[in-house]
């Protein structure tokens, strides 16, 4: 796995470069919206990646709550942080596109508002992790992730009750997307998914290493033999 890591990064960078070329040069300019439509090749893949990462976070949180697996908690931290970053990109690129096309920066439409609330919930998740640095932080954060996941459908329904303004997804039945556009879009969807997964993986490795170092420090200060073989002990982050 460790040998695959740099190779996968190279592949990711190549994919992103190819996606950039496809989106900016190869794909035709949209007839009514003009060049600003090209933001779609980044906006939607980032949204997809963010939602996948939030889903990973929920999955890792549930795994942690059941089995108290430290790796799962590291994955939860990594996916939440990277997910918030991608979600921020979505919330920034959206208004840049909406201003020339809709004439407004923001509207309280169902997809926009649900994404914003999801972002708020995950920012509060990161705040909790930041403000609490005891050994029980992973449990508290995992519980909060479960609560956030329960909240999202309710947010969706409460705003769905108003009329929605966001463009309906153009893929699927009777999709009006030109083949060249679809190609550019799919390349970028793949590139950003892999990119998100790679950042998440890097952050996960960083978190794992940090915990190993902390544990080694804790062991050293106890006068123990140094780094233990396994890292399955719950770590106190207050050891810093």
């Amino acid at each position: 796995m460790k040998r695959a890591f740099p190779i996968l990064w190279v592949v990711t960078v190549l994919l992103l470069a190819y996606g950039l070329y496809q989106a900016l040069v190869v794909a035709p300019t949209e007839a009514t919206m003009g060049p600003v439509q090209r933001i779609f090749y980044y906006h939607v893949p980032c949204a997809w990646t963010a939602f996948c990462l939030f889903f990973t976070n929920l999955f890792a949180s549930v795994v942690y709550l059941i089995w108290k697996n430290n790796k799962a908690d590291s994955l939860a931290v990594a996916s939440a942080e990277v997910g918030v970053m991608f979600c921020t990109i979505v919330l920034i690129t959206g208004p840049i596109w909406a201003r020339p096309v809709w004439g407004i920066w923001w509207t309280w439409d169902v997809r926009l508002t649900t994404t914003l609330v999801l972002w708020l919930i995950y920012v509060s998740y990161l705040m909790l992790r930041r403000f609490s640095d005891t050994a029980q932080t992973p449990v508290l954060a995992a519980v909060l992730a479960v609560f956030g996941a329960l909240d999202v459908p309710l947010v969706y329904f409460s705003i769905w009750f108003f009329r929605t303004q966001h463009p309906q997804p153009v893929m699927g039945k009777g999709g009006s997307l030109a083949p060249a556009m679809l190609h550019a879009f799919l390349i970028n969807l793949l590139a950003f998914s892999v990119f998100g997964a790679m950042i998440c993986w890097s952050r996960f490795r960083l978190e794992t290493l940090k915990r190993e170092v902390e544990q080694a420090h804790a062991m050293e200060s106890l006068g123990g033999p140094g780094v233990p073989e396994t890292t399955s002990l719950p770590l106190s982050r207050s050891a810093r």
Partner: protein
Amino acid sequence: MSSFWPVVSATLAKDIRLEWRSKDALNSMLFFSLLVVVIFSFSFDPNAEESRQIAGGLIWVAFLFATVVALNQTWARELKNQVLDAYRVSPAPPNGLFLAKALGNFIFVILLEAVMAPLFIVFYNLRALGPAWQLIPVGMLGTWALVVNGTFFAALSLRTRSREIMLPLLLFPISIPAVQAMVEATRILLAGDGSARFWIVLLLTYDVVFTTASLALFGTILHAE
């Protein structure tokens, strides 16, 4: 599980007795929401028609802030003399303790609303154009929505740094759909345009979902070490 209801009633009775003697939470909530109402009255100068449209928002924001004031005190009391540690080692069911705390807060916030609602009506010159009796289920369900999650997150943020700041940061994002439902239902009932049924059902769903989740996960929070 046979000790569930005795634990609930004993803890609830203790909390009500403590509150009856000190009146800390009630006094601070009452004065705080009075301040919010007065400041809102200076910030907006509405006529009767406008106030019907915005009063639902104002009244619930005032109650939301006041609830946080009460919730911050609810568990802090148990930290003194290691009461919470005693709970933890006792065989009493933890969700009984949670339910009692949530019920206690619910009673205090309902009392606050019973006092503040007439004041709101006077200050904003309100008269409901829709079926006013529906404001009672909206108030009950909305208060429970705030209190059940608030009590849970107050326990969750108990051992974080600066927990009094942490509670609203955790509670407000999760409460957004509930707050929207309360505000919309109140606005519809005051302005008399349409039916508030969708929002009442949404509040009911929110309450059922989060009461279940809180009762199921409170033990995990209490025993997290």
